């Protein structure tokens, strides 16, 4: 009886755990699951913008899902021409160079808009409160909006516009602690369903020469037990996804690259020896929604960057140590 009374008091006093809230979160979670699946399973083609800081980039996407899996082409419509062709996990990047050649790069790349949500939503529900917000419109479609409210100060807030008819994510904003939009993706036009012609998912960039640049030369995945450099205490909710050695333009020695994720946001940690005669740039800076923090440990330079608040990259950098 006393326990029941206590429980009742808690329900009244702490709105965070009210039954209504739990039910609401479940409804919101259904939308998230729907959006994660729709981006992979539906056919669609359209144009979207990516805005970050004072830059706006426009891209065209065509996505085909059939018995052989996912096939997708994303091409930039402004700035340098570039086409990214994805066949399931295989990603090829086509770009022209100054000598009328086509450079074909085989590379790995995270899922791009509208497939921003991972298949496993566990990381998101652990680090964000998933809330139904209101109804809205994006690219002419009626949408359900969802807020991903961070549970602490180590990540940003996200607002998602999900097509009520199909579940496809049509717009996604990242907001900082002052509720200012610091980055957003938004379809300006989209056709969902129907046939996607093969022409739409083939590369169009042509040139006299074809230069194939091979990914294995650039990054080598390391065994998880490679523990020369570790992040002793990553910010809460972030866990290591992978570690690799990679060659980077203008650097003689390979750079170690550790990747962390909280289920939605990604943070990269780079470790490399300080080049002789080079005074490394130190401290905090940012590029659009990407925060950057640099420091040195002895003769090594640590560079941390991610689409997270400044405090997160700083804490990550300060927690790097050599075993």
């Amino acid at each position, binding site marked *: 009886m006393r326990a029941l009374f206590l429980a009742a008091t808690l329900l009244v006093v702490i709105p965070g755990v009210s039954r209504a809230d739990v039910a609401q979160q479940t409804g919101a979670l259904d939308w998230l699951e729907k959006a994660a699946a729709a981006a992979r399973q539906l056919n669609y083609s359209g144009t979207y913008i*990516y805005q970050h800081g004072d*830059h706006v*980039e426009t891209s065209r996407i065509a996505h085909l899902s059939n018995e052989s899996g996912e096939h997708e082409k994303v091409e*930039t419509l*402004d*700035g*340098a021409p*570039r086409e*990214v062709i994805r*066949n399931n996990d295989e990603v*090829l990047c086509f*770009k022209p*160079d100054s000598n009328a*050649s*086509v*450079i*074909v*790069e*085989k590379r*790995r*790349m*995270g899922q*791009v808009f509208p497939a*921003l949500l991972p298949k496993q939503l566990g990381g998101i529900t652990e680090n964000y409160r998933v809330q139904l917000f209101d109804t809205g419109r994006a690219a002419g479609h009626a949408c359900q909006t969802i807020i991903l409210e961070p549970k602490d100060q180590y990540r940003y807030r996200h607002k998602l516009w999900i097509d009520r008819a199909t579940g496809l994510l049509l717009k996604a904003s990242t907001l900082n602690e002052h509720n200012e939009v610091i980055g957003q993706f938004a379809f300006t036009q989209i056709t969902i369903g129907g046939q996607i012609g093969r*022409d739409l998912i*083939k590369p169009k960039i*042509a*040139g*006299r020469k*074809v*230069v*194939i*640049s091979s990914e294995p*030369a*650039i990054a080598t995945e390391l065994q998880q037990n490679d523990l020369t450099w570790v992040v002793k205490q990553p910010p809460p909710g972030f866990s290591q*996804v*992978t570690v690799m050695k990679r060659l*980077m*333009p*203008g*650097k003689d020695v390979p*750079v170690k*690259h550790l*990747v962390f*994720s909280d289920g939605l946001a*990604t943070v*990269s940690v*780079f470790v490399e020896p300080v*080049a002789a005669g080079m005074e490394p*740039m130190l*401290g905090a*800076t940012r*590029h*659009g929604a*990407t925060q*950057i923090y640099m420091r040195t440990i002895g003769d090594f330079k640590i*560079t941390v*960057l*991610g*689409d997270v608040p400044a405090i997160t990259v700083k804490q990550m950098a300060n927690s790097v140590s050599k075993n």
Partner: protein
Amino acid sequence: MMESRLSALVDGELEHEDALTLLASVKERQALQDEWMLLHLIGDTLRQTPSLSPDFNTRFSAQLAKEPTVLAPRAICHEQPPAENRGLPGRWALPHRPLIKLSAAASVAAVSLVAWMAFQFNDGHESGSRANVVVAENSPSGARPAANVSSYLAAHQEYSHVMQDGGSYQRAVFETSQGGGR
């Protein structure tokens, strides 16, 4: 238009007569030859079969000069079933849509054909018109100075959702040196 028919040819989707007509025009137009080469390269890359070595065309041409065999499409010409057998089931039934299959299994023959066409075309024309295949020895073209964040952004981007063009990276470098307080 031409490009999409070429792509259909590479995928083995063209009728025999159409294929021959198209191959004839490929022989005459450099742009189509380049496109043809690219389509096969993409196919090979997607299938993870090894690419042609850089001097493949040269070596092939030299060998072909020594041993002038004509690799004509006619060699894979189909046979029509005898008129009286048409429409019959069982072992007499032959395909109604015989195709020149140039993808996957026949890719070696197709590549040889490309090289042969390049060779034919270049014979007596300016040498620069050959479609070259270069395997890059190094990482992407834009080797830039060490002290900037663009390469970190590019590497990080492989694991985040953002697809930006090179121009942004250039701007990023500029911004950082402005805002970095150095």
